[in-house]
């Protein structure tokens, strides 16, 4: 049952992506992208990350995509001439994308054990088993509150990156205002 749901949403996500890049109108592209986002949110829930799924909907669909649509409408970019590249551009794009896809799919071959083995052979800077205790996330999530299990590392281990990210957001905020304003 769950796998059926998984594949339905997976298909929807791929379809949304394909349509997103093929639609002439930016509005339509944005809407198709929204469907992909929703599908991904569902997949996150299936993968046991309900919290991420919720944030996916809130941040991406609720904020980012709305921003996109807002800009599209602000610039009145509704129907425009086709902005697809020429035949040679398409061919090059397909070749590169194809190669990339093949290589990425090769990652599929990676199983956790193989990854752990490769990490173990790498420089002895990290203890593989200590760094990646298998299934730990689920156990932590099951043992504690989900939010707590995320908050622990976020505000302990990754406190400094977290703070840097907040500064980044502030900078982005200021930057966006400065750039978007007509005259300062």
């Amino acid at each position, binding site marked *: 049952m769950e796998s059926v749901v998984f594949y339905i949403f997976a298909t929807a996500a791929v379809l949304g992506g394909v349509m997103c890049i093929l639609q002439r109108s930016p509005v339509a592209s944005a809407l198709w992208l929204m469907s992909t986002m929703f599908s991904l949110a569902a997949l996150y829930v299936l993968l046991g990350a309900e919290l991420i799924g919720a944030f996916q909907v809130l941040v991406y669909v609720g904020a980012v995509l709305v921003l996109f649509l807002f800009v599209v409408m602000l610039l009145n970019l509704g129907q425009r001439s086709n902005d697809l*590249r020429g035949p040679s*551009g398409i061919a*090059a794009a397909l070749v*590169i994308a194809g*190669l*990339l896809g093949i*290589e*990425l799919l*090769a*990652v599929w071959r990676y199983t956790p054990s193989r990854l752990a083995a490769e990490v173990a052979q790498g420089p002895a800077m990290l203890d593989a088993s200590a760094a990646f205790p298998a299934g730990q996330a689920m156990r932590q999530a099951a043992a504690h509150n989900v939010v707590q299990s995320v908050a622990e590392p976020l505000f302990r281990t990754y406190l400094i990156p977290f703070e840097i990210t907040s500064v980044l957001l502030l900078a982005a905020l200021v930057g966006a205002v400065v750039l978007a304003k007509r005259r300062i």
Partner: protein
Amino acid sequence: MTLFQETAAAAPAPGAIGLAWLLLALPMAGFVINGALSIWRPRAKGAVSVVGPAVLIASFAVAVAIVLQLWQASPEAPYILRLWTWLPVDTLRIEFALQIDQLAAVMMLVITGVGSLIHIFSVGYMRTDDGYARYFAYLNLFVAFMLVLVLGSSMPVMFIGWEGVGLCSYLLIGFWFNDKANADAGKKAFIVNRIGDVGFLVAMFATWQVAGTLDFAGVTAWASAHPELAGSGVITAITLFMFLGCTGKSAQIPLYVWLPDAMAGPTPVSALIHAATMVTAGVYLVVRTSVLFSMAPLTSTVVAGIGALTALFAATIGLRQYDIKKVLAYSTVSQLGYMFLGVGTGAYAAGVFHLVTHAFFKALLFLGAGSVIHAMHHAYHATHSHDDAQDMRNMGGLRRAMPWTFALMGIATLAIAGFPGLSGFFSKDEILAGAFARGGEQPIYYLFYGMGLLAALLTAFYMARLMTMTFLGPNRTGEAERAHLHEAPWIMIGPLVVLGILSLVGGAINLPPLVGGGAGLEHWLEPVTAPAARFFRLEEPHGSTELFLVGAAVAIGLLGLAWGYLASSRRAIVPAREAAPETGFWRAVYHKYYVDELYDAVIVRPLLWISRVLLWGVVDKGLVDGAAVNGSARLSRGLGWIGSRLQTGQVGVYVVLFLVGALWVLRVVVG
């Protein structure tokens, strides 16, 4: 005092010799006082007139005291008076030390004695000049350096004086520096001297390399201990380089060209520096290192040859000069050639003898010329005429106006021409006799002898010509000026009289046995020349040969005098302003064979051209700066331009490039 000296001074030498430092200190103090006066009190001529000559006379007194003590002690080894350690480096230990021996004694007497007379003369001669104090400061400084030159106990200390006198010569030649010709002459003197100094320096380096010492005593000891090196290449090289230094300082071929130009300085300067003392430094150096020269027969021959050639060559130029000082300048070059002929022959004492007598009579000639110029200058000044006060064509008949000067210069002329009994006769005769004697071993010296004899003829000729044109015949100064021609004041004539007496009887210091003398100077100098005599001893001619040589010299001298008088007095001379330009061969002689022009065209101009166009223009601005430095800047800018062409600014292109890179990385990682 740690800033000056850290080792204790040596025990002072006894008696007056211990006071030898005063010889230097007195003129140095005079320099400081007169220099200070020239800056702050240029009008205080009274003080300058006292200080300037007084320090010299005091110095002369010290010199006399030292010589008297030396006379009584007659030591075999020189007294070394160490003042402080100058250059202590590793095994090199150069003391600033004075060396008092018989040769230094002769030199210091000449320098302080003749120097005192010239200082006194200058009081009268320069009295009206604006730079009076400056003049005496320079003159005092010169004497101090000249004494360092002759008293220095090692080559580098001597070199201090050697360059120092060059400096003073530079400053005094260019004394009236606002005239470009004077400043040029001073610069030329310094630079030409420097060419010679390179030789001296290299000789020092080589000496240090082989002998491990630069003290004269040390070098002499080393040379005496290595008789096997006699005639070797290294000694020959050292002495040849040293002689190059001598040709610069003593104005020998090929570096004589500065001396005639040096006449641009005040006349007493010409007398002191460019006749009596500084220019003889080269002769002094050869005698000082005579042991090396006698170990190098080849060099000795070169020295004698250059000396003889210079004596003859300069004498021919002197034949056709009209500037009274120029004649004397070429005469000086010529007489210096004699001295080198003497020391090159191995007759070191004879060279020094001629040095001394030459100091007397040439100083007298220059001061006499100064007296004449002084009178001429005043005459022209009184009538605001711009005629040349030094041109002999504007003179004539001056014996009536200046009898003292005429008489005294006459004595000097007879002395230089070798009139029997006068000082120059003995010294010149000794040199020629020595050259003739050495001809027995090395026939080339007969040639040198012949050249010397010919030069003596020419010397007598041009001196007779000078006297005739200046003092005899009708006066050509001009109607208005004639009344203003006067004898110089007594403060100028006084020194002339003293020098006249010395020129008359100066030969007495080294009378040859032939006339019953004891060859005093020769014996006096024996401690100095003895090491050299171990390697080479000149067999002096005796008997009939000697008589024949004397007779030849006397005949030649008298012949030249007569010829010169007749040639000059019979020819109608017109004043310089109306004179026609010279023609033919005499034109080349008048222009000194165009040697200055030749040097200018062959050396100076090409050097400047190479420096300006080739080195500065092509190498510096073109190759290094243009091609290499700015070229690399242009290259990097060009590369940057190419790089900027790669940057299309199209985001799509960047994406493609980025993806290709990402693909490659993935390919490596995933493998």
